[in-house]
C-alpha cells in the first residue's frame, strides 16, 4: 500500500508551444478531501483531463496507490479506480436514472456476463441483471434518488442531476473520485447540502476525493488540503486556510495593491 492514494510527479502538458500546465505535484492521502483551486483558465480541468486519460501528459507521471497510470486510456484508468464528474453535467440523458447508474456498474467483476449469454438469454443474464438492479437501487437510495429511478435523466432538476452524476461515478467503485465544480450553479442551501453529500460519500464509501471548486465557502468547509493553480503553475499548496491566506494567492485572485 502506498502512502498516498494519488501522487503526481511534475505532471505537465503543452499544446504546441503553449505550456498549459507544468510541474503539478499533488499528494493526496487516503480519505482526504483535496481541493484544486485557481482563477479562470488556470488549468484545473486540464489536470483532471490528464488524470482521467482524456489528455496524455507530455511531462511527468501520476500514480494511483503506487501504480503508474500515466499513458493509459480513459476506460483503463477508470477500471484502475479513478472516476470523475464533469464541469457541465454529462449524463446519459435519454436513459432512465437507474440505467445511468447501471452503466457505471458495467465493468465490475461481479456483474460480468459475456455477449453470447446475453444474446441467448441464459439464466446468467437474468441473474446478473437482477443483481445490477439491486445494487443500483442501493446506490440511488443513498443519494435519495430511488423514487426517481424511472425518470429520464434529462428530466431531473439540476441539483439532482449533479447528484446522479456523482452516483454514477461512485458506482464504478473507484478509489479516487474527481469532482469538477460540483457546486457550480447551486444556491447556498444546495451547496450546503452538497457539502454534506461529499462528506457522506467520503465516510460511507471510504473514498478519497479531489475536487475543483470556485465556491470558497465550500472549499474552506470541506477541503483538508488545497493546491492553488495559476497560469498552469502551482502557486501555493498545503492546509486550506494557510494556502488561501498566502499573499501570492490573494494577489492572483484579487489583484495587486498598486
Amino acid at each position: 500500500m502506498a502512502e498516498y492514494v494519488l501522487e503526481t510527479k511534475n505532471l505537465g502538458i503543452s499544446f504546441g508551444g503553449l505550456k498549459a500546465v507544468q510541474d503539478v505535484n499533488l499528494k493526496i492521502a487516503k480519505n482526504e478531501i483535496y481541493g484544486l483551486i485557481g482563477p479562470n483558465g488556470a488549468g484545473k480541468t486540464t489536470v483532471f483531463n490528464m488524470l482521467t486519460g482524456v489528455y496524455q501528459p507530455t511531462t511527468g507521471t501520476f500514480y494511483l496507490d503506487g501504480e503508474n497510470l500515466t499513458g493509459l486510456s480513459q476506460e483503463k484508468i477508470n477500471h484502475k479506480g479513478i472516476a470523475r464528474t464533469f464541469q457541465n453535467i454529462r449524463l446519459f440523458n435519454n436513459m432512465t436514472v437507474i440505467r445511468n447508474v447501471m452503466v457505471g456498474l458495467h465493468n465490475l467483476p461481479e456483474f460480468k456476463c459475456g455477449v453470447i449469454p446475453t444474446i441467448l438469454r441464459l439464466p446468467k443474464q437474468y441473474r446478473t441483471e437482477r443483481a445490477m438492479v439491486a445494487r443500483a437501487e442501493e446506490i440511488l437510495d443513498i443519494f435519495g434518488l430511488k423514487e426517481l429511478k424511472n425518470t429520464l435523466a434529462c428530466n431531473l432538476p439540476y441539483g439532482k442531476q449533479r447528484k446522479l452524476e456523482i452516483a454514477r461515478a461512485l458506482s464504478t467503485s473507484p478509489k479516487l473520485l474527481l469532482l469538477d465544480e460540483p457546486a457550480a450553479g447551486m444556491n447556498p442551501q444546495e451547496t450546503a447540502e452538497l457539502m454534506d453529500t461529499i462528506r457522506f460519500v467520503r465516510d460511507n464509501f471510504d473514498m478519497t476525493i479531489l475536487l475543483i471548486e470556485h465556491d470558497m465557502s465550500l472549499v474552506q468547509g470541506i477541503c483538508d488540503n488545497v493546491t492553488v493553480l495559476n497560469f498552469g503553475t502551482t502557486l501555493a499548496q498545503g492546509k486550506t486556510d494557510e494556502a488561501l491566506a498566502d499573499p501570492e494567492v490573494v494577489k492572483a485572485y484579487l489583484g495587486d495593491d498598486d
Partner: protein
Amino acid sequence: MNKILEPFKRISWKYLINYIAVAVVGLLFTVLTFSSGLPQSTLFLLEKITMNIILVVSLSLVVGFLGELSLGHAGFMCVGAYIGGKVACILSESIDGDGIVSFLIALLVGAAVAGAFGFIIGLPALRLKGDYLAIVTLAFGEIVKTVFANSSEDTFGGSMGLRTPRFDKQYLFIIGFVLVLITLAVIQNLIRSKHGRAITAIRDNEIAARATGINVTKYKLIAFVISAIFAGVAGVFYSFANSTVKASVFDYNYSIDILIMVVIGGMGNISGAIISATAITYINTELQTLLTGGAAVYKDIIYALILIVIIIYNNASALKSFRERFNLKALLKKTKLFNKTRQGYADDEGKWDRVPTKIDMDELLSVDVNVVESIKNPDKEEM
C-alpha cells in the same frame, strides 16, 4: 393464481409484440400457401419484405442505438449475397442443389464473411466520427459492388451477375420469416442487456461513457459487426430468392433506402423499423407494378412525396395535438388493456424517438472536452 401470473407481468411487451406480430403474419401466409397457394407476386413481395426487415432492424442497431451513421449496409449485403450464392453453387454440384442443408451452409458462410468484412472495415472506420464514418462506409459499399461487378466470369459471374441455384420458391418466404425472428431475437436481446445499455450510453454521451469505463471501441465494433452479419444474412437470402445476383442492385441507393426505413420507423424503435420496412417495401413494389411504361417516371416522385408527408406529419408542431390524440399508444390506452405502468427492469424506457444521431451532436464528436465547450459558450468556460 397471482403466483402463476407473476412471471408474465415482468414480460416486456414492447419487444415481445414484435416476435408475436412477425410469427402470426408468417403463420398466416404459411397456412394460406399450403391450403390454396399464393400468387407469384405475393411470394415475391413477402420475400422482399422479410429481407428488408432484416436489413432495417440490423441497421437500426448501428444508426438508432449506437448513433453512428453507416451508408454501406448494401455493401455488406452484397458480400453476403455473392459469397452465399457462390457457396450454394459449389454445394449444388456435390450435394442436393436446392435443399435446406446447402441453404444453411451458405447462410452461415455468407453471414460470417460479411461479419468479417464488418470487423475489417469497422476497426479503422469507427475511429472516425459522424459524417466521416458515413463517407467511409459509403465508399466501402461502392468498392465492394465494383469489385464483384468486375470479377472474372467463372468466379463471381462478372457483369452478367452470379447465377445461383434456385430454392423452392413456394416456401422460401417461410425461411424469410424465420430469419426475421432470429434477427429480432439477437438484436433485441443484445439491446436489452447490459451490453445494449453500454451501446446506448455511447450514443447518449461518448465522453461520459468513456469516463464511466465503457470500452467504446469494443462496443462500437460489436454493434457494427452484428449489424454486418445480418446484412450478410439478408444478402444470402436475396441470392436464394433470385436466380442471378447482380452487383448493380447493391448500390448506395439501396443503402439509403434502408436508412430511410430506419429513420421513418423511428431511431432505435424496432417495432417502427418493422412497420416502416413493410410499408415502404409494399408501397414501392405496388408503385412499380401500377405505373408501367411512360408513367414509371412518376414512381420516384410519388414515393418521395409519401416520404415527405410522413416526415412532416411526424415532426410538424402544428399537428402535435392531433398526433397525441390519435396515435396508437393513446388508442391502446383508451381500451384500458395496456394502462399499467410497470416497474420492470427488462425494457428500456428511453425516449428513443427524439434522439439525434451523432452527426448533429458536434460536442460529442470531440474528445477535446474543454476546447469545444469554450467555443460553444466562450463566456461560461471555467466560471
